[in-house]
Structure formats: structure tokens, C-alpha cells
């Protein structure tokens, strides 16, 4: 995530990254309280870091993280359209393997009681207390899987809310945008409340996360007429990323910011 942040600072052309995590890791949304992660028992003991993007916590385990970084001149004023672009592309790919996934159409529907504000010298507040995990929240444009029936495990049939399998969030800087997203591929013991794409597919048709991601990039880029090529970080990008890693994503002060 330090690399994503460095690329946001230095972006001159669209960049897409795909990655998975060596160690199952919990990432908090930028405004989430660290203390909330202590209430999520299944992920206890996992490394915790704070993203610079918004939204809820992600358990990075059996999932694929993508980041999309666009320079200001390519960003539309309604940046939420970027969510839809990626999510519709994934929905189309899932349709090809026989799964129905739809963009969530309305305002959040899953909420806990209102949390009272807290103030200090610096003022920050959460106006409504949403579920801790991103994938238990519902926001406009989230990609929700509507399976006929799960094929593995014993799960409560979620016929009302469906199963969110892709959520994205953004950080804006001087007009440029970093969009993070997570595609769930499989249920994790560290977040057993959530099912992934492969939990709804027979073994022979299960998706390889990285292959899926590469196909997603191809399709996403072709929508814009962009041709992508793989590249390495420049020395400058590497230096800035190392700085962010030290000052933010490996820093207890940053990760326990709230």
C-alpha cells in the first residue's frame, strides 16, 4: 500500500496493480477506529494496518487486492463512476462462469445504532456506526453476488443481502485518484462471516485469483482504449514508497491513528 500511495503522489499515466498478501492482514479504512478491530475476534493476531482509502476493514486472505491510480486530467468529477466501471467489468466476468452479481442500488441498508460523536483537540466523528468489515456493509455500487445456493460449507442463506464479493474505496490527492478494491475468492477462517466467488462455484470452474485479475485489467483498459504494459517502479517511486512504508504503513503511530 506504500507503493500505491507513492504512485498517487507521482502519477502521470494510469497505473493498475494487483497483489495478494504473504501474511493474512487486516486493513482498516482510513477513518476507522483501531479499537474496533479488537472486537473482531476471528482476525485477532493478524497484522493490522490503516489504509489511506475510506470504507470498512478488509481481511486480506483468499482475496485479490487491486489498485487503480489515475492522474487528475483523466479523472471525471464524479469519481464514484470509477467504482462502477470496475465492478461492472467483474460482474460481466462472473456472468461468464454462471454467477449473477449486481451493483448494489441504494443507500446503505445494514447499519447499527447511531454512534455518538467524540471530540478532542482535533475533531473526528463517525456519524453512523456501520458494520466493521467492508464486506458486511452495503454501499451504492458494491458488487453483490446472488447465488442460487452455496456449494460448500454450512452458511446461513443470505437471501436478503446477497454476498458482497467486491468493494472499492478511494483516496484523492490534488485531483488524482487512488482506488483500492478487494475481490473475495474464498471464505477465510479469519472472517468466516464472508464467502467468496469460489465458494459458489463447483471445483472444476473455480477461478484463479491472479488470472482473474489479469483478465480484469485487460477488459478494464480496453474500455478506455488503453493498452497496458507491465513495468517496474522507478527509483523515485521506490524511494517515496519506502518513505511511506516507514512513516505510515509500518508505523504504529499511523496504524493506531484513531
Amino acid at each position, binding site marked *: 500500500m506504500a507503493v500505491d500511495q507513492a504512485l498517487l503522489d507521482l502519477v502521470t499515466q494510469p497505473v493498475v496493480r494487483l497483489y495478494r498478501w504473504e501474511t493474512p492482514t487486516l486493513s482498516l479504512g482510513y477513518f476507522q477506529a483501531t479499537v474496533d478491530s479488537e472486537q473482531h475476534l476471528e482476525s485477532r493476531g493478524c497484522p493490522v494496518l490503516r489504509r489511506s482509502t475510506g470504507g470498512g476493514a478488509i481481511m486480506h486472505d483468499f482475496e485479490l487486492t487491486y489498485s487503480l491510480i489515475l492522474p487528475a486530467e483523466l479523472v471525471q468529477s464524479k469519481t464514484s463512476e470509477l467504482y462502477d466501471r470496475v465492478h461492472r467489468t467483474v460482474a460481466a466476468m462472473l456472468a461468464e462462469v454462471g454467477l449473477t452479481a449486481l451493483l448494489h442500488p441504494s443507500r446503505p441498508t445494514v447499519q447499527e445504532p447511531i454512534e455518538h460523536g467524540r471530540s478532542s483537540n482535533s475533531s473526528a466523528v463517525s*456519524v453512523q456506526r456501520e458494520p466493521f468489515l467492508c464486506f458486511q456493509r452495503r454501499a451504492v455500487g458494491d458488487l453483490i453476488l446472488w447465488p442460487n445456493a452455496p456449494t460448500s460449507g454450512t452458511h446461513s442463506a443470505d437471501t436478503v443481502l446477497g454476498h458482497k464479493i467486491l468493494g472499492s474505496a478511494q483516496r484523492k490527492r490534488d485531483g488524482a485518484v487512488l482506488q483500492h478494491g478487494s475481490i473475495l475468492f474464498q471464505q477465510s477462517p479469519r472472517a468466516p462471516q464472508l464467502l467468496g466467488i469460489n465458494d459458489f462455484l463447483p471445483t472444476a470452474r473455480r477461478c484463479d485469483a491472479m488470472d482473474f485479475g489479469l483478465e480484469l485489467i485487460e477488459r478494464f483498459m480496453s474500455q478506455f482504449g488503453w493498452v497496458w504494459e507491465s513495468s517496474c517502479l522507478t527509483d523515485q517511486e521506490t524511494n517515496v514508497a519506502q518513505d511511506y512504508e516507514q512513516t505510515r504503513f509500518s508505523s504504529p503511530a499511523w496504524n493506531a491513528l484513531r
Partner: protein
Amino acid sequence: MKAEDLKYLESHEWVSVVEHGGQQVATIGISAFAVEQLGDIVHMELPGVGDSVTAGEEFGEVESVKAVSSMYSPVTGEILEVHSAIVDDLSVLSDDPYQKGWLLKVKVDSLSKSLLDFATYKQQCESH
């Protein structure tokens, strides 16, 4: 305050400067256009009284539609007042962005050199 009487940054913050006790005091907020573009604002973080702000540099952050955005200061100076209560009721930002939706009052050392008048700012918004 009327939108027409304010100055703006390209990044959508507004500022009104008045003389108060021989000192220039700036009131700062974010424009109606910004609030509309951001959508449903769910979190806001503001600095504290006594902190310094610098023209063109970040003074706070908002989250809306899972997107975190920075807010930039139109002036350099020391913060005299913070509208802390607004973070408990962010709907004020859309209901009354230029009066009850103010965010900071700052003792002005200097103004940004990039302030736009209303007509120019409006033109910028319309070109989006």
C-alpha cells in the same frame, strides 16, 4: 454570506475575510458544488484551535462514498475557532454551506495567491 461575495480555491474551499479588532480574520468552508460532488459525507476531521494552516496546504479530510479527500487552506495563519460541532451533524454542509457550514476561523497572516472570484470559480465548476 452569499456565495457571490466569497473567494474560492480551485479545490473548492471558500473564504471570507473581515477586519476584526485590527486583525484580518478568515472564515473558511467548502463550496456547495464540492458538497454536491462529494455526495454523502460520513466523516470529517478538522485541526484544533491554535494550530497553524498554510495557504494551499491541507487542513483537514472528509470521507464520502468511501473516498477520502483533503481540504486545502485558502490562507496562512493561526486557527482561532473550529466548528467542531459540525462533525456531529454533517448535513449542515449541504443545508447551509456558506453560513452554518463554516469550518474554521483563522487569524490571517497571508492569503493564497490562487483565490478565484465567484464568476471564475463558477465557470470552473461548469466546465467539469
